[in-house]
């Protein structure tokens, strides 16, 4: 179930930004939400938060993006922020092989803490630093296909593919919701004669205190 709160937007989707420290998560976020980039931005402590409203197939979608600290120490804390997230942008740095190798660990992290239907986009950031490249685009593409993730190389500095990465994730989420809504209508039509009340059990898949915004929970 997606959130329909007021006339400002039709849907509210929660997205998390994850990946190793220093890969450029905060700059991806500031590029997307404020069209800003800073070479000497500060490190993220805990979690930072921003929103952006955009149009997806004639619907107004508000993306609520949570930027998390990359260091290992913060994972225990930040895992709580995954709750209710319907999309994730998993970022690595194309000039640092280690950050690509760690993508696997981040996927495990998502599997452990996020909704199993979460839509994941892997982003190889800093694509402008071609002379320092340590991970080929092909390697990224192959890995993404193997893991069933969307993939793009991005450059927050040059504003390349950042908007597209978020658009892709949000559109995919929107399609999943639409499909679910259709399926639900279908199910409603097929369940008994009209007029007869049908009990719908609304099950909140997450535990108490969690978000109700998850569109992918069953």
């Amino acid at each position: 179930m997606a959130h329909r709160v007021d006339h400002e937007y039709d849907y509210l989707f929660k997205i998390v930004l994850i990946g190793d420290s220093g890969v450029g998560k905060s700059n991806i976020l500031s590029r997307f939400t404020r069209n800003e980039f800073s070479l000497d931005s500060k490190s993220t402590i805990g979690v930072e938060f921003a929103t952006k409203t955009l149009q997806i197939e004639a619907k107004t979608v508000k993306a609520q993006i949570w930027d998390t600290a990359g260091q290992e120490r913060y994972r225990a804390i930040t895992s709580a922020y995954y709750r209710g997230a319907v999309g994730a942008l998993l970022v690595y740095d194309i000039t640092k092989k280690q950050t690509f190798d760690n993508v696997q660990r981040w996927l495990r992290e998502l599997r452990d803490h996020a909704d199993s239907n979460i839509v994941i986009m892997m982003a190889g950031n800093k694509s402008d630093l071609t002379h320092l490249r340590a991970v080929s685009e092909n390697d990224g593409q192959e890995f993404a296909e193997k893991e069933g993730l969307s993939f793009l190389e991005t450059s927050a500095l040059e504003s390349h593919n950042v908007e597209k990465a978020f658009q892709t994730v949000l559109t995919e989420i929107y399609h999943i919701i639409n499909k679910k809504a259709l399926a639900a209508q279908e199910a409603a039509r097929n369940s008994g004669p009209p007029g007869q009340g049908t009990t719908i059990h609304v099950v909140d898949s997450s535990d108490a205190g969690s978000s109700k915004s998850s569109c992918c929970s069953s």
Partner: protein
Amino acid sequence: MVMKKKSVPEWLNSPLWYSKPPDDRPISHYNTKTLRPDSSPPPPPPPPPLSKSPSLPALLGSERSDLPSGEPSPCHPWLEEEPRDSELLVDFRITVRVTLHVVAAPSEQLLLGYFPLDHTLWALELEKKMKQYNKLKDDLLLNPSEITRRMEASAATKTEELANENIGLLSRSEIKHEEHPLSLSKTSVWNQYFQEAEILEQIDRDVKRTHPEMEFFCGDSPIAKTNQEALRRILIIFTKLNPSIKYVQGMHEVVAPLFYVFRNDLDGTNATFAEADTFFCFAELLNIFRDNFCKQLDYSVVGIQSKMEKLSQLLKRHDEELWRHLEVITKVIYLQVSPQFYAFRWISILLMREFNLTECLHIWDVLLSDPEGPQETLLRICCAMLILVRRRLLAGDFIANLKLLQNFPNTNISHILHIANKLRGPTVD
């Protein structure tokens, strides 16, 4: 509309505490030249004496006499007039040097002081600390090649000595074949070196991102480079001496203000000791707040989660209406504005990101000298910050409130400290 609740004390609803109406100006953090907010509400009436022991600087004799202007200082400079930057630095140096040990071990009081109360002895103390620090640098900042060279040299001497003592008996025990860069042995210095490399990279990355708006810390100037090197060494030595917590992102923000005040000591000699001085004070400060950085303690009674829970309870006790709005009403509509979304950063790096450096020194000064101890004082200050923007919070939803709290508006620090001071002691039930 602000409802008068039984549990909300009268003073809480005073219009004095309301922050400026929301505006969309970017927050000009680190505009360190001015402490005075441009269009703040009228200053509050002088509050009852603050926690900061007024006797402390007096006890110490006045380091302020070093200052060019010898104006008598007001009892509570942060309330009656905004302190000048230089005064603030002096005050803060005194607080840090003298009180860190005191608050860390109140029962021992000044006996354990990092610095003796008599500040004529400080020069001597600084020299002692400098020697200790140099020894640490010598021992801990060697690269593996140097370590192995030293080990080989000492092994060779020992073998020679043994050979001389027991002619004919060859001792093999001292000969190590594991000390090379490709060694798989866990005890190999090279292996340890590579394991540490990740942390060292992290420290490097963060040190370079410390206060990017201040030339003192960032940029290509020789001063910035030297200062970055000093911060780097301090953090590496701390990491090596504290293998259980190592380096955690955010520590760089805690060490920076200490280094800034010591490096800017008007006494040039003291300034040359800044790195050693900072290291020991940082270690003391972390002694008090280290549990916040420790992942293993996150969910224990001393970990950061429980601190955030305490903040929530403190707010509930003093301003139930606001607490209810943030943690109950907003939750019904969408999501609870839980302290973990905003106070994690406030608490773990002692508010360093929420205000500019000068304002932070002002806050830290109170934090470290309050008789209730820095932990309790920090939570009271955090709670005061919430109360200060209560009207905007009460009008806001989840998203608006989170944005407000993650980008705390320009504020008169005196107001925050004044409210924080009011929050101590018995509460109205």
